């Protein structure tokens, strides 16, 4: 039962353009959705989150959109920079009880010069 899905294993974008990473979920109980960025040989690092009661959250070049009716969220990076090349994970977070995070499979983003 894959509660959080990232259907694109990889994405290649030109430097300066917009990168859009997508994520779908099935569990309506998530309180927050989070995006993590991971470089090789490092642990995932938190990037941005959105509450389930919001539809947009913006932080600098990063914006996350949440469409609850479609159970879909997306991360927009604009403009894309070479340092954005990494694997991106989306996660659903239930803050009650054990506060479990459920992760998607990840999308490898490559920014081309």
């Amino acid at each position, binding site marked *: 039962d894959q509660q959080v899905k*990232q259907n694109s*294993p990889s994405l290649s974008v030109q430097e300066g353009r917009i990168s859009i990473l997508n994520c779908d979920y099935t569990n309506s109980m998530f309180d*927050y959705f*989070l995006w*993590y960025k991971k470089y090789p*040989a*490092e*642990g*995932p*690092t*938190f990037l941005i*989150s959105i509450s389930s009661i919001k539809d947009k959250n913006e932080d600098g070049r990063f914006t996350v959109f949440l469409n609850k009716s479609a159970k879909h969220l997306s991360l927009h990076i604009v403009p894309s920079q070479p340092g954005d090349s990494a694997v991106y*994970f989306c*996660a659903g*977070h239930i*803050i009650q*009880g*054990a*506060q*479990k*995070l*459920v*992760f*998607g*499979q*990840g999308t490898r983003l490559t920014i081309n010069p």
Partner: protein
Amino acid sequence: DAGITQSPRHKVTETGTPVTLRCHQTENHRYMYWYRQDPGHGLRLIHYSYGVKDTDKGEVSDGYSVSRSKTEDFLLTLESATSSQTSVYFCATARDTGAFFGQGTRLTVV
């Protein structure tokens, strides 16, 4: 990053041997997790803890056990390592604003 330290960072072990991975945190977070990362699967939850001596299974718990005798330490044990447990293991702690990860342990079972 919640001061999370994993040890060892790399380990090669033989099939059938027991292995213990350690996670140490300095932020006094109540919740701690062990994940494994494998290509095509993302991060999958192995076990988690919601307090000292309070642990529960995640989605891929078979072959693993955990212990938490102190708030700051969460141990993951492979009772008898198998090749399918070759992976990168991440420890994490959480509060209501998200989770924070250690740098990972690369385990190879030969």
